[in-house]
């Protein structure tokens, strides 16, 4: 007798548990799509960050690299061992960033403004100890390095950055050498 009553009780308790579970699973189902979508959207936005922001940075670097290659050559041609040669080299580096056929960055929409030119001495390769932005004496400066730096705007990567930054620095550098009547890129 007693045992039967107990089993009855157990069965009833089981039924109740099942009922509770059932209602819970239904509640889960209602929100499931929303949760799955938001998870998928988060992952997709992270991929967007990778594809869009980093893709844009690679475009900008390619543009800056083309510019510094040309600018370094343009500067190196002007070097002739005199003070005016150094001045001409400095203007030569910036010349290609202005005018009608100016090279630009950010898919060719913004002018390149941050250009640093430095000079070095040496024979076959530049002597790394002699790099100077403003050489005091003209001397035998045969190498020119042009560095272009621009802040690449980021949209999705901003989440990973300190507040209020909104951009990431992209730079490109080229070194050119002056030889007799020629100029050539060495790096």
């Amino acid at each position: 007798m007693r045992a039967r009553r107990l089993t009855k009780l157990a069965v009833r308790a089981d039924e109740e548990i099942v009922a509770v579970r059932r209602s819970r699973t239904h509640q889960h189902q209602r929100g499931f799509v929303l949760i799955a979508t938001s998870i998928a959207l988060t992952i997709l936005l992270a991929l967007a960050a990778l594809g869009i922001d980093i893709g844009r940075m690679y475009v900008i670097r390619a543009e800056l690299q083309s510019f510094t290659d040309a600018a370094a050559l343009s500067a190196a041609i002007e070097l002739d061992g005199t003070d005016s040669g150094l001045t001409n080299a400095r203007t030569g580096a910036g010349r290609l960033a202005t005018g009608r056929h100016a090279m630009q960055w950010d898919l060719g929409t913004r002018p390149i403004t941050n250009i640093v030119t430095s000079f070095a001495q040496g024979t076959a390769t530049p002597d790394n100890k002699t790099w100077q932005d403003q050489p005091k004496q003209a001397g035998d400066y045969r190498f020119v390095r042009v560095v272009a730096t621009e802040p690449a705007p980021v949209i999705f990567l901003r989440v990973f950055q300190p507040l209020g930054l909104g951009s990431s620095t992209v730079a490109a550098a080229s070194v050119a050498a002056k030889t007799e009547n020629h100029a050539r890129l060495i790096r």
Partner: protein
Amino acid sequence: MNRRGSALIEFAGSLIVLAAVFVGVFQIGYAFLAYRTLVSAVRAGARYSSLQQRGAAADPDIAKAVRNLVVYGDPAPAEHAKPVVQGLTTGNVEIVNGPDTSTVSLRGFEVDALFAKLKLDGRPTVTFPLTSGASVTSGASQ
């Protein structure tokens, strides 16, 4: 039944959102990739042109080689060569030869990113100084 139906509608709605985001990311990503390829192509053309003998860049054969280099990555491409970016033709390549520089840019080209088009007229532009022969500052001194 009712619940299953609403889940289906929710799923359909979210699929539209996800698909839109995916397509957008794909388009922009493809446009960037194409632009980067075009920058390298135009740079190669301008460099090639700038390395020719002074005055020779105006030669139609050289101009043709430069156009081919930009479009096919080869000054003398094979018969059925494919352009570096789909739809690019030699007619899109503009060459401007200054006294000391060679400029190559694209004219009237559109990057076809499936659902949107990126219009490129005058960009990318790359200018290289002429680096062979006499020095640029003055022909008389050399």
